[in-house]
């Protein structure tokens, strides 16, 4: 990435690395985040992919990436990054690879892989202090298979496997805290609709060595059931309502990079999405909405 320090939107890269014309859905929040992340990480990357929506970015014989790409499996992308990183280190050590030819290993995985099946491989990669960036595009369900509930699905959301009157009974797993508990060099939440915040975090991540997580909430028109044109607005609301706290973990400390004040009521975020429509129609489910609001309020009470 460039040496420039990112202070304002004007400092963001003006060239875009990820090619267009891919098979992603219109309004894909994951693709939006990946676009921004890739521009900041730069060309000298090897993307190590876990099974998910983004696997279909590259379909033989075309790819939107201008860097290395390796598809692995749903659960072992961090181990793939380990193999690539170790091999690059060995080649450097033996003088078979110049510094200019070296690259950053970047895992690209969805929430299904990141919160569930791939967690063991992820935990072990962090524990081994693997020098890599892990990008999770989190659309809060197994999106590529039609949005079944995953470990990232929020409370009350309707998914293909939680179709009852109250939606998903469970609560979204705290992947940020799980990563932070491993004491890695860097953990951050981002969202594509806040490109400046994202860029500052990527800049910081790129300057560090070791395990780094970029956890991007990925508004998903298909899975969350809303008009694709609302993706950015829903992203803004995820932050303004406090549902998606923008924060980072560095040097053992968690810092919030945006503290929404005053917070917009959560229902403004919920009511735009079909997956929460049962909270408003045919009757308003005040108890459920209040529970989600209380959950968010409780979070921020501990922060500020």
């Amino acid at each position: 990435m460039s040496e420039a320090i990112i202070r304002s939107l004007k400092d963001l890269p003006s060239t875009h690395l990820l090619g267009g014309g891919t098979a992603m859905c219109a309004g894909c929040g994951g693709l939006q985040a990946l676009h921004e992340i890739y521009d900041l990480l730069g060309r000298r990357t090897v993307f190590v992919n876990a099974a998910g929506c983004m696997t279909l970015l590259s379909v033989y014989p075309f790819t939107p990436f201008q860097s290395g790409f390796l598809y692995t499996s749903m659960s072992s992308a961090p181990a793939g990054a380990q193999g690539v990183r170790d091999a690059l280190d060995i080649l450097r050590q033996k003088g078979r690879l110049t510094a200019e030819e070296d690259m950053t290993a970047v895992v690209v995985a969805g929430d299904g892989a990141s919160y569930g099946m791939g967690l063991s491989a992820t935990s072990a990669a962090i524990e081994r202090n693997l020098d890599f960036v892990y990008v999770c595009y989190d659309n809060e369900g197994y999106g590529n298979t039609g949005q079944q509930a995953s470990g990232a699905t929020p409370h009350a959301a309707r998914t293909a496997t939680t179709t009852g009157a109250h939606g998903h009974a469970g609560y979204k797993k705290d992947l940020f805290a799980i990563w932070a508990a491993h004491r890695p060099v860097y953990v951050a939440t981002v969202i594509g609709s806040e490109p400046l915040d994202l860029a500052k975090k990527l800049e910081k991540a790129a300057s560090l060595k070791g395990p780094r997580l970029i956890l991007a909430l990925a508004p998903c028109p298909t899975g969350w059931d809303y008009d694709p044109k609302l993706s950015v607005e829903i992203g803004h609301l995820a932050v303004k309502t406090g549902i998606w706290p923008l924060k980072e973990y560095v040097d053992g400390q968690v810092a919030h990079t945006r503290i929404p004040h005053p917070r917009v009521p959560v229902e403004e975020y919920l009511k735009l999405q079909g997956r929460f429509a049962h909270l408003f129609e045919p009757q308003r489910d005040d108890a459920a909405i209040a529970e989600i609001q209380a959950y968010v309020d409780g979070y921020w009470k501990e922060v500020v």
Partner: protein
Amino acid sequence: MTRTLLTGNAAAAWGARLADVDYVPAFPITPQTEIIETLAQWYDSGEAQGRLVMLESEHSMITAAAAAAATGVRVFTATSSQGLLYGMEMIYTVAGWRVPFVLVNVSRALASPITLEPDHTDILAARDSGFLQIHCATCQEVLDSVLLAYRLAEDSRVRLPVIVNLDGFYLSFTREPVETPDLEAVRGFLPAFDPDAIQFRATKPISQAVAVLGGSHYSYFRYEAHLAALQALTVYDEIAQDFAVRFGRSHPAVEAYCGEDAEIVFFMIGAFATKAKDAVDRLREQGWKVGLVRPRLLRPYPTALLRDILRGKRAVVVIDQNLSMGKGGVLHSELASVLYGQPGAPLLLSFVGGLGGRDLPPEEFYEMAKAAQNAAETGMTPEPRLLYTSGELRELRKLQAIALHERSQP
């Protein structure tokens, strides 16, 4: 060249050391662990150079192994049994990456019931993956096969990963005299790995292992890998000949012992084939015209060679140390498929035995030879048999009775 007593596991580690591997992703499992421990000790002490990294599972280990191979370094790894199966998604996946590396599998029977001693059901689960397979009967063969495997895997006509298989306990923990070739001689046979186009470089971006949509593109890649595997037959013969010239040890794709004049042939893979060899010697002393045919190469399957060796034999006793539930022995059906309809094809008899390390005593070889001779005389092939004696059943019943009695005690 030095001759020392080595276990099969130590021989495998020596193979990796002499191949000068760059990278060893590892995960422990009985009876393989000694291999990675040996390498770890060499690397820690500086006696050999290489990087060993402990992964958290075989699934990750195989992913890391292939990812490193895809980046252009020489990779070695090892596993057994449940570990091989835990990594099986990646065994199938990475074979399609067309990157060379060597995996040693120390065979151990599969759960359930969970157990320790060997049979070949584990390794045969990888049969259709695209990994090539070399099966060893002695510790010397283990060392030599690791070297052969690298030459084979890295050959530009092949570019597939190779599994070198040895039997747990019977080979892994058994010391045999093994000649360890000089490093320089090995370099002559196996030069440093030239990854050619298989690499990740910043200035030469490449996508590996990407998705295809549609059966046509998919078939293209699957057929390519299959044809490369078939091509490995010719390549293997070249390599084995070169090895024999350089080191004076012959490791053909199929070993035929007393095959020339044999009328009845035992057909086996792995360490238990040495028991068959012993049985052949004893039976020959009594005037039986018997022999042993032991494929070392199971993938690619040495079809032409087997047809040639077995043509005109009266009967083949296939001893499967594996069991495909609801079908029978895998080696038997594979051999039948290549001999069916061939002129001069022998009768095939199927015996399943040696499961979970169960012994194959000399008298059973004698019984099997008798059954083969009877089949040859009558022209009737007997039903497949599962080797298990009434004595074994009696012992089992006795233990069950004791356990039941113990449980009924207050």
